[in-house]
């Protein structure tokens, strides 16, 4: 291609270089940069004005000499080559092979930013995914095409839970299932855990991995999830696969966005994050879904570690406003050795209302889950009361409530890391636990259901 090469840049600051006297360059265009030793790296046009063009350099600006740096504007946005051969492969954050097996060929090239899906093209997700985890299936049901993040904290078993969901999800193992794993700024050990566990417990040849490790350039983190999601969309909508995308850790992604925003001199918003953090996160999370008339689907499980376990921090807060619910892990439950330590009260699945009940899971599912929430919420109140007056001073109903709480946590919530439970089994267990409560407390279940199920148990 006859793209002119420019020699020399004016300023270099953080991940940016400023080039003067450039014309015919498009906003967001990809740039090839060569340093004095002839090594190439890539960048992207961040802003354009008559006098100067600001280029954001992936892999950083180290070793660049202002006088000898050469830039070539490629006239196209950052792209990824997609093909069936990607299955089973590992790439870096920019979509280059990381496993030493060479480039992938064939397929098609797409702009990694994608385009917004026309809401009319979407099909409302309703297909229940049986993850085999009681707390998730019964109370925060995962639906095919949903974006359901895990809100965790450092040191909590979010990785184990994500692997358990990915391997136990009933669609796993069938030919039309694939996992796309995007590691953003994660530790070597975490990356190794994911790849090993997923390979050992599933099929290693239906996983595509993108890894940007903690010591890889920060700026690549912006591209990594977009690479992964473009791949997922290709696998889902072109090849008809049901794709589960696991992105971890979204906190690293947002930190990278902040770092770049500050370096570019943008006006910061909450806690120094850019004002467009919401729109930016939405451009990732909204790339989940089911398209009418196509057989595949993209389900997203992003994982984020809440800074200081604070759910009101901008990252979990904005995420919660975009995603269709959240699974929140609790340090308190974890310290009591309850796995998975899911804090069900703050967890939520927004799509569950239409994906459960008659014709989907079981007719009694909606009211049973609603009752579990109500009763467990009361357990919390009673516990704080017991903390003040002592357990002995509680009323009869309050004591029954505490007993229910223990049963719920020890039997229902707690399960093995490889234990798979059918939804029917989980619901029956829920009924058994609920039947220990006084009848007047069961306000969410219809009288008819109480008659039918509680009688059966007693």
């Amino acid at each position, binding site marked *: *291609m006859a*793209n002119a090469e420019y020699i020399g840049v004016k300023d270099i600051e953080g991940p940016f270089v400023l080039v003067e006297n450039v*014309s*015919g*360059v*498009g906003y*967001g*265009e990809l740039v090839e940069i060569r340093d004095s030793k002839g090594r190439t790296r890539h960048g992207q046009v961040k*802003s*354009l*004005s008559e006098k100067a063009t600001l280029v954001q350099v992936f892999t950083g600006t180290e070793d660049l000499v202002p006088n000898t740096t050469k830039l070539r504007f490629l006239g196209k*946005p950052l792209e990824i080559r997609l093909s069936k051969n990607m299955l089973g492969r590992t790439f870096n954050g920019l979509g280059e092979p990381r496993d030493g097996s060479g480039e992938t060929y064939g397929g098609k090239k797409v*702009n990694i*930013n994608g*385009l*917004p*899906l*026309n*809401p*009319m*093209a*979407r099909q*409302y*997700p309703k297909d229940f995914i049986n993850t085999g985890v009681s707390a998730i299936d019964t109370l925060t049901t995962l639906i095919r095409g949903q974006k359901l993040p895990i809100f965790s904290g450092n040191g909590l078993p979010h990785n184990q839970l994500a692997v358990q969901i990915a391997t136990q999800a009933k669609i796993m193992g069938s030919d039309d299932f694939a996992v796309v794993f995007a590691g953003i700024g994660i530790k070597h050990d975490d990356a190794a855990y994911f790849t090993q566990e997923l390979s050992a417990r599933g099929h290693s040849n239906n996983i595509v991995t993108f890894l940007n490790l903690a010591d890889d350039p920060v700026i690549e983190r912006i591209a990594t999830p977009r690479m992964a999601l473009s791949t997922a969309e290709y696998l889902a*909508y072109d090849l008809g696969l049901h794709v589960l995308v696991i992105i971890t850790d979204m906190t690293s992604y947002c930190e990278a966005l902040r770092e770049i925003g500050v370096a570019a001199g*943008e*006006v910061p*918003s*909450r806690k120094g994050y850019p*004002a467009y953090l*919401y*729109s930016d996160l*939405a451009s990732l*999370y*909204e790339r989940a*879904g089911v398209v009418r008339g196509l057989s595949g689907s993209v389900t997203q499980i992003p994982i984020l570690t809440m800074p200081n376990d604070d*759910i*009101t921090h*901008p990252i979990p807060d904005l995420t*919660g*406003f*975009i995603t269709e*619910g*959240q699974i929140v892990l609790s340090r308190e439950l974890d310290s009591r050795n309850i796995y998975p330590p899911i804090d069900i009260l*703050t967890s*939520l699945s*927004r*799509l569950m209302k239409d994906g459960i009940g008659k014709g989907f899971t079981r007719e009694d599912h*909606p009211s049973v889950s609603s009752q579990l*929430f*109500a009763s467990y*919420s009361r357990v919390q*109140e009673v516990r704080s*009361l017991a903390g*003040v007056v002592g357990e002995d001073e*509680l009323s009869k109903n*309050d004591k029954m409530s505490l007993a229910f709480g223990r049963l719920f946590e020890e039997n229902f919530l707690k399960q093995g890391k490889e234990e798979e439970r059918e939804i029917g089994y989980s619901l029956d267990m829920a009924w058994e636990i609920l039947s220990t409560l006084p*009848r007047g407390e069961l*306000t969410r279940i219809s*009288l008819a259901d109480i008659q039918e199920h509680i009688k059966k148990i007693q």
Partner: protein
Amino acid sequence: MEAKTNAAPIKKEGKEGLIIFVNGPVIKASNMRNFAMREVVNVGPKKLMGEIISMDGDDATIQVYEDTQGLNIYESVTGTGEPLSIEVGPGLIGSFFDGIGRPLDSLLETEGMYISPGTSVNMLSRKKTWEVTPITNVGDLVTGGTVIATVQETPLLLHKIMAPPDIEGEVTWVISKGLHDGGTIVAKLKDAFGREIPIPMIQRWPVRTPRPYRERLLPNEPFVTGQRVIDGLFPIAKGGTACIPGGFGTGKTVTQHQLAKWGDAQVVIYIGCGERGNEMTDVLEQFPVLEDPRSGRPLMERTILIANTSNMPVAAREASIYTGITIGEYFRDMGYDVAIMADSTSRWAEALRELSGRLEEIPAEEGFPAYLPSRLAEFYERAGRVVTLAGENGSISVIGAVSPPGGDFTEPVTRHTKRFIRCFWGLDKNLANARHYPAISWIDSYSEYAEEVNGWFCTNVEPRWGEMRDQVRQILAEDDKVQQVIKLVGEDVLPDDQRLVAFTAFLIKNGYLQQNSFGSDSYSPPSKGFEILDIIMDFYQKSLALVRKGIPISLIKEDESVDAITHLRELAPEDKEGFALVRKRIDTHLDRVATERMRKLGGE
């Protein structure tokens, strides 16, 4: 590809600008002195839609409603000669538009599953035919707002084609009765200067300009929503304004959907502003199937959807609420009651903030621009009950969701919104965690319309309506205090009359305020809600008498007939016998408790 050179810009004569700066959705262009402030422009070779938001010497700043990726310096900017406008006319009902009024179904047909930049389509179809009935005759004098002809747009809605607000004249020609396509002219007028004015079926209106009306009325009729907590405790009037603030997961959208489904309006406009794509799809799949409880017709026959989902360009998000309310005003001018759900106004405010940041304006609170409150006021003041230009009564009720960061109601958007609305439905995190829906807090919420609409409820539902509301609110307020004591010392040590208050509040919360968003309880007419409250308060009064006689509360509340109170909502509204039966069983139970106790006391 053509080689890139340092070609000097050629300054064009006349009305054509050149791009000189690009930063996301904000661009600058030079040679713009012949353009109007707020004019809509076409940007670059793809003719992206943009709007001029400031003028500075030769340069203009433009916000672009589409993705600017690929725009080059020195590409051209051309004008359209009008401010941001939308089309109004038959074909609006049942349609689904994006934030700047592009029909998403046509985009799906022409562009496929993704929305790509630079696509332009007519908002309303010119080819679709309508059965037109002329109302005016040749020789009639017509002023702005006069109905020229009508079209039965859906079985639920008679669409009135009106003369645009600013014209006046004598009818010289009028359309014949029969099938006509959307692109037609319905009448021709001759004005005072003898000029001919054609009145088209499809008209245009600038979205940032409120449509005129003759006079404003005070709202005194309730907008019945079928949600017990709203109709019963915190009612909103037709023409009223309300906001629903709540952190994520507290049920803002579910509540908005409920109001859009069951609210008593002839036209419902649902604006999905910066929210999830799937939520819009949900409405789109449900509304054609769900029935309007009053007419039995599909809800879609009165609904218009506007969506600028969170991943669509941010500038169009800013425009979407104006598009929505302009359509609302158009139907109001026909003399209809219109309800607008804006979900979420916070995303709109954040779009303002994002654009303001890109313009490098000096921020006020938390990065929001200083003009945030005045923009909010402008929006909410477009609601109201009015006498239209044609002399009919019409109204627009606006219900805005607010998404405060971290669920903190002291943040700027919630705080300023509270200044301009009269009905506040605060969502409570703890209620939502316990899956008590709607999670509208009975402590924090308020309605300034309660007094004004009480007359209507007393006449149309039940004369004791206001009295009942006062009693219930009193119990809930007392319970709030009692609960604080319970948190410290436990329930057992409280005197029985206080425990009765706590128990009655428990019945109100679980039997009345809690309402499922699906199933038969989803729509609860005011009469059903009253019936439930009447049973609960009746139980309270009778039990209070017993407690005062020294009968322990445990004897009063532990009975299956009392358990049934929290299941009253499972009954159908018209099941009078069902309610009477529960009432009778409670009375029998209380009588038995009283007599047994008397016997025991007598025996001692």
